[in-house]
């Protein structure tokens, strides 16, 4: 066991990990943040996506031991990053029904958040590419894409109004 410290959503967690434990496993099972899902544990579904130093990664493919010193953001931190209010993406997913069972939703929102931070006015194609590695078995893609595009518009309008 190795003692490490993980910084997740601006909180620090001391955890003991084995070298081969994935970041997804540690965040879910040891830290107890279960908003990050693990549908496949092999990098093929996208449900475990979180932001590692600002970049979306499949946390099932990352070792927890390597994440020490990184800035980790999970779905649980999205509201906090938005002054405790729902992020426009979350609002849009709610209003536009960008989900059915909701299992893929945290991963989708994280990927979309990264996209909109770097590209505030994406085309539909760019949105689809940003979530290209994410599966939604419920087949909600139409409304997921619509949610992201609508959130982008809301965010641009808010920006313009400021």
């Amino acid at each position, binding site marked *: 066991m190795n003692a490490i410290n993980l910084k997740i959503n601006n909180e620090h967690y001391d955890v003991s990990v*084995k070298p081969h434990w994935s970041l997804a496993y540690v965040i*879910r099972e040891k830290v*107890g*943040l*279960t*908003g*990050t*899902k*693990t*549908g*496949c*544990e*092999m990098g*093929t*579904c996208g*449900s475990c996506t979180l932001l590692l130093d600002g970049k979306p990664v499949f946390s099932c493919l990352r070792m927890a031991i390597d994440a020490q010193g990184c800035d980790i953001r*999970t*779905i*649980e931190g*999205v*509201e906090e990053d938005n002054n405790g209010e*729902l992020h426009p*993406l*979350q609002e849009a*997913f*709610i*209003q*536009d*029904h960008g*989900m*059915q*069972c*909701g*299992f*893929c*939703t*945290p991963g989708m*929102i994280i990927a979309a958040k990264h996209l909109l931070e770097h590209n505030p006015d994406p085309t539909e194609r760019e949105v*689809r*590419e940003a*979530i*290209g*590695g*994410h*599966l*939604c*078995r*419920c*087949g*909600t*893609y*139409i*409304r*997921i*894409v619509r949610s992201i595009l609508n959130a982008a518009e809301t965010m641009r309008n808010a920006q313009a109004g400021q």
Partner: protein
Amino acid sequence: MTSETSVVGKSLPLLDAYEKVTGKLKYAGDLPAMHRMHHAKVLRSPYAHAKVVHIDTSAAEALPGVSAVITHKDDITGKKKTCGSPWHDFSFNFMGPMISPEVCYVGDEVAVVSAVDEETAKEALKLIEVEYEELPAIFDMEEAMKEGAPQVRPWGPNSLPPSLFEWGNIEEGFEQADYIIENRITLGNQQHAPLDRNACIAHWEGDSVSLWTSTQALFWIRDAVTDFFELSPSKVRVYSTPTGGSFGLWWGNNFMLLAIAIARKARRPIRLVLTRDEVQTTVKRRERPLIDAKIGITKDGKMVSQSYRHLMDNGAYGNKFDPYQSVADIYTTEHARVEFIGVATNLLPAGCMRGVGDLTLAYAIEQTVDMAAERVGMDPVEFHLKNHWKTGDICHTSQEVVFAKLLFNKNPTVELTSSGLAECITRGAEAMDWKNKWKGWGTPSSVDGHKVRGVGMGISTHISGLAFFGFNGITVKVNPDGTMALTTGIGRMGQAGDTTQAMVCAEVLGVELEDINVIDGDTEVCGHTMVTFGSNGMHMGARATKAAAEHAKEQILEYAAKHLEANPADLDIKNRRIFVKGSEDRGVTLKELMSTPIFEYLAAPEVIGSASKGVEFDKAGKMMMADFAEVEIDTRTAQMKLIKFVAVHDSGTIVNPAVCENQVAGGYYQSMGLSTTEHLVFDDETGAILNPNFMDYKLMGPLDMPDPEIMFEEVYDEDGPFGAKGIGEGVTCAVPIAISNAVYNAIGVRIDPPITPDKILQALKSKS
């Protein structure tokens, strides 16, 4: 008849949307650890068929951290029932043992270990020594049915006795026909493949057991546990969380029984979470069909007779033996015969998956119908319009009839309540521009160099529940502030069952959706509710919800009558306010009524509405759908691309349009998977599944195909709540038909799904 509604018909957000977008919603695998909880792992058979001659678990038991090991030798109930005892699931999906000395498919359970953590449990599995004696295995349905074929499992014949539905006189029917079209079809092995992995926690307290799991079948799991462990229902409590997609997968399953059995032995709470590999290879898959179809038509394109022999690969423990739904009735002919045979093979057990029998049989019917239309030279759209099922027609193959015969020796008739098929077909054809694009059978609608395009169509129906699924017990409790709690055992699996039931309740009680809190997923709190399957939620389930809400309304109006010194019959509720019809300014808000003492009692009223409702089965409300596809095939690379897809659905009144659009889109994506890339590949030699993951079992992603055009034909169903019918399963049924027919028209060769480049290549070669 239609009715004015204020909640029903709106795309209101899901009740649990906030939890979903914030990651707060707990699925079974997210439940917090319990005190002293251990983790279980399952040792599984590497052989498709073998006897466990010897098993030594001593080294595993001695491993520090291991709390229990169970094998087929374990006494499970204390009444000489061992793990090897068979149990059956009431849905006819499963009939098999839990850990048997004879393993019958690759992945069958051999032992279970519980330990302080998953790693120790895995370690312990490696220390179990098993000696197997291989037995002959069969993977092919027709082989399994042959006389003298080796037995697939320790009991019964390999094929169940056929279920037969017959009406008219089939021989006569074919004599009346000018042409007889015969056809044989099959489909691939599809897996439900929800993103979420099956999981549960089991815990014994004395002689009572609690189980936490995600499921669509709350009460059936309770009943299965009760049955298998020989307990009183009062000793079994099941808590269910929403599923991360189910599509038929999250029902009663052995893994839950394994957790319960080992929790008793370990005397600890036990958590069992399946790996992705286990989800794909040990829970369930869609039954694979092999169907011989024969249709008789007259020269002018009238269908006069039809017969189908439907084999269904049940795998090792699947237990299907009849059509389940009345699929053959898509076309009402005077003479018909439908034979249905469930066959056991040494493969992963098969069972219900979204669409079930409607999908498989409709595929066979519709391929053959397309051939029939070709035979008489009639445009398929015209052929469909001439022959399809209509309101008031009889459902000859309804499973209710089977049950009525079985239980009461009676032969009732079941009537179709409504059908918008004609409108669905017409609107779909228009949206596809069928008139211009359809150029004849086996004839592309356009050719661009080596790229050819073709269009195809298909129709289907699906039940909105079946009466014998049972009664729904629902309560509506009104709070002092006018909000209310609705308890229902409906399964939450992404179909928005909680939201749409609450919408029905809100509509009846004149309140807003947000006023309703849905309490679900607890067998001790909720009334017995049907399994959420067969698309019964919005038809049969909602009828009970509506009745419970009406019961609450009755009480509210009685109290309001005292408050307003009026006659209850003169009152109604709208916008959270009770008022006198005709003089609307005389009224009281629900909140005021519920929090103000009434003179007679010196107390504020307490309102609890309840209803327990079964459904009479003489009428069947079925959803209808017509799908149209346009595909493009590159004749050099044999790649197929979907260009356009139109889905038109009659699910009666659409209670929540956004939810229903998502359902139709989901069915389209899943059935596009079935049509093209989704196919569990079984090794010919070993029967093992070679692609148990999302890398090799390809699900459709966000870049893989165009969005479908979705339309609803809202035919008001007099039998349904606010005119609604079900939707969730039917959405998959007609997709593969439309795709296959489009491919045929593009290249002139019929190919059964999965339509892969190698099959297209072969087809192109065979043609040239």
